[in-house]
């Protein structure tokens, strides 16, 4: 008995957390899936209605638009955050005097909620109040920067603000990665005559695979959940040009009395996560196992 207990203690310790996750994550996902098969409107109802909600979802032009936006957003957001994060971390790693200050500057956006930084961004990006006005006031009368109000570009303004909020965190992750690399490796490569650029590209960055993984997990979770950002900046507009799945789902569930339809869209979001993220994570985990 004692032996059994000791042997299984790790599992017993994880068990409560796992039970909680099982209920609050997987149970709720199943609940959502079931609700997507009902006619639920204003409040959840449990009579079965087949896959009608899913058919309605995929014949809704607004949904397609939201999905398309999510793809554009995610690709740009992840790539740009990684790029800026890597560049900033490498720059900061050059033994800068004001590093502490600059680091805080790059990192602080993560600390603020978007409820109001959204307003500041809205003003900055608004052509009649922000950057465009600033430049025209300075005499560059032909300067235009109207992405916020341009339906073809509005999704990119969301990328700008989202990158602002999250790239500092990626910077921190990579800076940490750079700091933990043995100096000797770099010195050895320098003696061999490698340029700084090629040292970073061929030696250092490949060593940071785990950092890439953490960053991608964090960035993907932000982009899939992005709601506050969109609401604060464009509220999905102009028109519905910057709509996103999380916004669509919230609207349908809580403001349009279409909980069934909203659940169908939520199921699609879960499936996307399953299809894209899980295989990637799993292969990463296995690789780490092989390495360690």
């Amino acid at each position: 008995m004692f032996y059994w207990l000791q042997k299984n203690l790790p599992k017993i310790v994880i068990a409560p957390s796992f039970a909680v996750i099982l209920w609050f994550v997987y149970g709720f996902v199943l609940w959502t899936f079931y609700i997507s098969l009902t006619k639920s409107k204003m409040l959840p109802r449990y009579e079965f209605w087949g896959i009608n909600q899913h058919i309605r979802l995929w014949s809704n032009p607004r949904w397609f638009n939201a999905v398309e936006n999510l793809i554009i957003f995610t690709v740009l957001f992840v790539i740009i955050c990684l790029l800026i994060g890597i560049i900033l971390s490498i720059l900061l790693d050059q033994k800068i005097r004001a590093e502490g200050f600059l680091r805080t500057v790059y990192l602080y956006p993560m600390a603020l909620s978007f409820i109001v930084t959204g307003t500041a961004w809205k003003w900055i990006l608004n052509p009649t109040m922000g950057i465009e006005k600033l430049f025209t006031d300075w005499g560059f009368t032909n300067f235009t920067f109207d992405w916020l109000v341009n339906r073809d570009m509005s999704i990119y303004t969301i990328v700008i603000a989202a990158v602002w909020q999250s790239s500092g965190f990626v910077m921190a992750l990579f800076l940490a990665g750079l700091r933990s690399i043995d100096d000797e490796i770099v010195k050895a490569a320098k003696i061999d005559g490698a340029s700084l650029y090629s040292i970073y590209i061929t030696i250092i960055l490949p060593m940071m695979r785990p950092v890439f993984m953490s960053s991608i997990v964090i960035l993907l979770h932000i982009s899939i959940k992005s709601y506050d950002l969109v609401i604060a900046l464009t509220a999905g507009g102009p028109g519905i040009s910057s709509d996103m799945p999380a916004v669509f789902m919230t609207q349908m569930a809580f403001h349009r009395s279409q909980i069934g339809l909203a659940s169908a869209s939520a199921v699609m979001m879960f499936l996307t996560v399953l299809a894209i993220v899980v295989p990637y994570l799993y292969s990463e985990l296995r690789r780490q196992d092989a390495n360690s």
Partner: protein
Amino acid sequence: MEREMVKKLIASIASLAFAAGIIYNTVLAGGEAEVLHWWTSGGEAKALQVLKDDFAKKGGTWKDMPVAGGGGDAANVTLKSRIVAGDPPTASQIKGPTIQEYDEEGVVAPYHIHEVAKSENWDSLLSSQVANHMKCDGFTKYCAAPVNIHRIDWFWANKKVLDSHGLKMPTSWDEFNAAASKLKSAGIIPFAHGGQPWQDATVFEAVLLGIGGNEFYQKAIVELDMNALSGSTMVKVFDQMRKLQGFTDKGMPGRDWNVATAMVMNGKAAFQIMGDWAKGEFSNAGLKPGVDYYCLPTPSDHGYLYNVDSFIFYGMKGKSKIDGQKALASSIMGKNFQKIFNIYKGSIPARLDVPMDEFDMCAKGSASDLKYSAMTGGLLPSFAHGMALRNAQKGAIQDVITEHFNSNMSSKEAARRLADAVQASM
């Protein structure tokens, strides 16, 4: 003091750490009301304070539960999670057909406040139209209480700007278009607008009421007649929307309504279409109606688009809560409350017998127009503010309007999509 705080903190942390089983249970004397609302600042908050005070005088305990944002969007989320948890608030700020929608979900019965309404004879105090909005169970029993009537179809205009260009307030949409063109060539933004879906919809319904007429509004927007939605009159309405879009400025998308109002106030822009809460912005800046600015209805055949704010009362258990509901309902319908509340709020009383002497010119105009429109069939529910339709249909229509207004979609296409979207949302 300091130590007390620390002590409190430690105590609360300790209790929270083992919290799972603890239920907070407050026992209160007299009636108790937990009220979910989104009136959290300025005139709205002041107006609501009147109600809180009145309720307190009746011996009730008011538990404030404000959740602002998106004209009630955030409060909607809160409300639904409370109802699903099986613990709805005593009263919440819900209006229009959504009241009946909640009733159909079975969470409003057994209509505790109906008794109060019967004994106070609300039927005689309210116009039948307003009264109907407040009734559940097949429009037979009162389940909600109205606080005010907002008019939506207002033109707000800068008088100095109009005067200096020799213009009068337009009485038809053609006149408006002509005046706006003139202003535009003079370098003034003719139409101040904030491009948010609800604002687009606000303008749309005013235009529709003017161009289509009262009957058309009833058919298309209230009855959702497919022919009306996709027909040639609707195309004309969208044509006018396109013209209005040409009169806006570049900063329009996403702009808050009050920023647009400020543009009218400082003469950058000439006109705005907005409900009568816009008045608060003008009077805060010390401007006077008729002297500095105009508040006149948008051109229509004596149409009047109303928005009645109201509180719905859910099914409750426990005497104290039910008492609270009854006391609150009676407070809301109080004559004095309705007067003071609406002076702060910018609207007019829902009760018909409140004297209007202390109200301003715009409100007086609104009250007399209301009576006339009610007689001639022009008194119609605002769809943009959730008085005409259920949320699914309202949302579907709003999507099309805002898509059209913010793109170069043709009017015909818009009308066709309108009908399709409504069909799909059913």
